[in-house]
C-alpha cells in the first residue's frame, strides 16, 4: 500500500503524520519528497546510510568543433545558452536538460556531462527504511530528485509513506498519481482551509481516495473541520493541540516510539486508513 501525505503548505504537520505512521507500521518505507527542506531524517536518525548522487545532464560544447552558428542558442527555450567572446556558455541552473541543443547542433559539437544537483540518502531506523531526497543549496529545481524518488518507490512492495512536497505544483501531482490513498493534513485556521482546498481539488482531479487529519485542534472553532463537514470529507483523526507532543516533535523525537498514548493514536489512524484504502479499492472493481 502506498500512502501519500499532503498539505497545501509546509508546517501543518505533514511530517509529523507521515513519520509517526511509518514508525507504527510493522515494516515500512518512509520517503521524504520535500527535497528543498527535508526533515524526516532528523527524526529517524537512520543508520547504515547509503548515499546516491542525483545528477542531470548538462551540455558542453567542444570549442574545436563549434563554429559559433548559434543554432543552439536560438533553440534553447530557457535561455540557458549564450555565445560570448567566441565561446558557448551554459547557465547551469536554468538548463532543463532537454537535449535540444545536442540534437540540433549542425557540427555535433555538443556533448553532455553529469552535474550533481542533490542526493538521495537511505538508511534504517528500527522497522523503517528511511529515504530522503536532498537538493543542493543554490539549485533552482528539485524536480529530478523527486522524480527519482518516486521512480524508486514503485519498486517497493512494503507499506510506503510518502511525505509529499508542499504546495500543489506538478511534483505534488506526480506523488499523488501513484498513491493508493491520500492523507491531507490541515490546521485549524482560515489559512489551513485555504491550503486544504487546494490539495482537496488535486486529489479529486486524480479521483484518489482520501481523508483529512485535523492537526493542532484547539477547543475553539475549527474552520478546517467545518470545511470537511460541509463537503462531506472523511475526517480520519483529530490530533489535539498538545504541548507534550509539540515538544517531542520539536526535539526531533518520534512520538509513537516514546509514548504509548501516541502509539495508540497513530495505530488507530493507520487502521482507519488501511480500512478506507481497502474499501475504496474493493468498491472500484
Amino acid at each position: 500500500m502506498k500512502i501519500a501525505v499532503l498539505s497545501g503548505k509546509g508546517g501543518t504537520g505533514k511530517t509529523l503524520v507521515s513519520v509517526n505512521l511509518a514508525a507504527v507500521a510493522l515494516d515500512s518505507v518512509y520517503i521524504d519528497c520535500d527535497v528543498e527542506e527535508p526533515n524526516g531524517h532528523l527524526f529517524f536518525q537512520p543508520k547504515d546510510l547509503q548515499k546516491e548522487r542525483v545528477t542531470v545532464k548538462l551540455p558542453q560544447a567542444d570549442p574545436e568543433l563549434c563554429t559559433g552558428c548559434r543554432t543552439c542558442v536560438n533553440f534553447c527555450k530557457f535561455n540557458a545558452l549564450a555565445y560570448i567572446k567566441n565561446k558557448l556558455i551554459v547557465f547551469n541552473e536554468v538548463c532543463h536538460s532537454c537535449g535540444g541543443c545536442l540534437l540540433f547542433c549542425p557540427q555535433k559539437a555538443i556533448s553532455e556531462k553529469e552535474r550533481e544537483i542533490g542526493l538521495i540518502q537511505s538508511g534504517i531506523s528500527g522497522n523503517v527504511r528511511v529515504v530522503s531526497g536532498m537538493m543542493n543549496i543554490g539549485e533552482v529545481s528539485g524536480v529530478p530528485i523527486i522524480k527519482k524518488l518516486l521512480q524508486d518507490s514503485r519498486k517497493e512492495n512494503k507499506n510506503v509513506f510518502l511525505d509529499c512536497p508542499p504546495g500543489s505544483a506538478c511534483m505534488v501531482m506526480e506523488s499523488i498519481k501513484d498513491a493508493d490513498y491520500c492523507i491531507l493534513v490541515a490546521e485549524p485556521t482560515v489559512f489551513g482551509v485555504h491550503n486544504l482546498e487546494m490539495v482537496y481539488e488535486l486529489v479529486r482531479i486524480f479521483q484518489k481516495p482520501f481523508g483529512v487529519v485535523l492537526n493542532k485542534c484547539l477547543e475553539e472553532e475549527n474552520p478546517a473541520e467545518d470545511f470537511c463537514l460541509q463537503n462531506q470529507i472523511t475526517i480520519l483523526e483529530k490530533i489535539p493541540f498538545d504541548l507534550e507532543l509539540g515538544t517531542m516533535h520539536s526535539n526531533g523525537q518520534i512520538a509513537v516510539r516514546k509514548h504509548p498514548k501516541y502509539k495508540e493514536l497513530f495505530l488507530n489512524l493507520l487502521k482507519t486508513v488501511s480500512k478506507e484504502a481497502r474499501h475504496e479499492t474493493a468498491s472500484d472493481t
Partner: protein
Amino acid sequence: MKQLLILSGKGGTGKTTIAGAFIKLAEARAYADCDVDAPNLHLIMTHISKARQTDYYGMEKAVIDTELCDSCSICRQNCRFEAINESNGKYEVDSYACEGCGVCDAVCPIGAVFLQPAVAGELMLYKDNGVFSTARLKMGSGTSGKLVSEVKKQLKQEAADADLVIIDGSPGIGCPVIASLNGADMVLIVAEPSLSGISDMKRIIATAEKFRIKIGVCINKYDTNKELAQKIEAFCQERDLSIVGKIPFDTAAIKAINKGEVIVDIDCPAGWAATNVFYKTLKLMNS
C-alpha cells in the same frame, strides 16, 4: 524604494502572520505575496475593491494536431520529460509533464506538433489600502519563479514611489525563493525552535547569503522550546547574524487569523512582540 523580504524556508512558521503585522505597522503603501503556490496574505488584508486580474502565461506547451499526426513516434522518442503518451496509436501531450522545451516541435517531420501559450496562473492587483500584488499558480503548474518575478514587477510598476515594500516570500529554497530574493534590501527569516525548524533555517540562510543581502532572524513561538531557541541564538551569534526578536506562542494569533485580523490589531503578547520585531528590523535595514 527599499524591499523587505520575509522568508522562512518552510511554511507554517508564522511568516504571513508577521508580514501582515509589519504591513499594518508600517502603513505600507506597497506589499506583495510571493507565495504563489499557496498565497494566504489576502486572507488577512482587508480590501474594499475587487482585484484586477490578469492571466499569467508560463512556458508554452506542446500540442499535437491529431488530424495531421501520422503516429511515427519520433517526438515521443525525443521528449526527455516523458510528456508524450501513446494510446491506440494516437499521440497526445501530457500538459502537466510538458516543460515546453520545443524538441518535439523541431523533430516532427511533418509539423504536426506545435507550441502554444498556456495560462499557468493568475496575477491579482489590489489598489485601495495601498498597492497589493499577489498571484496564484494554477494547480499542477511547474516553475513558479517566473510568476514571482511578475508579482514583483507588477508591484514596482504600480507603486514606483513607495519608499518601503514588504514582501511575504515563497517557501522552500528553490526557484521561487531565488526570484523573491532578487532585488531585496533585507531578508527577515522567521525561524521556529524545533530541530526541523533549525535545519530549514540553516538552509534558507545559506541560500540568502549567496545574495549578500542583510539578514535578520526572528524566532517565532520561541517559548515552545526554549532550549532550541537558545541554539538558534547561539548559531546566529556565531555567524554574526542579528536576532531581531522573539515572539511567544499565543493562541490569540490563531484567533486573529480566523477573524481575518492581524495580530497587532489585538492586545496580546504575540502582537506586542511582533511590534518590537518590526522596529528592530527597520532599524537594522536602515543601518
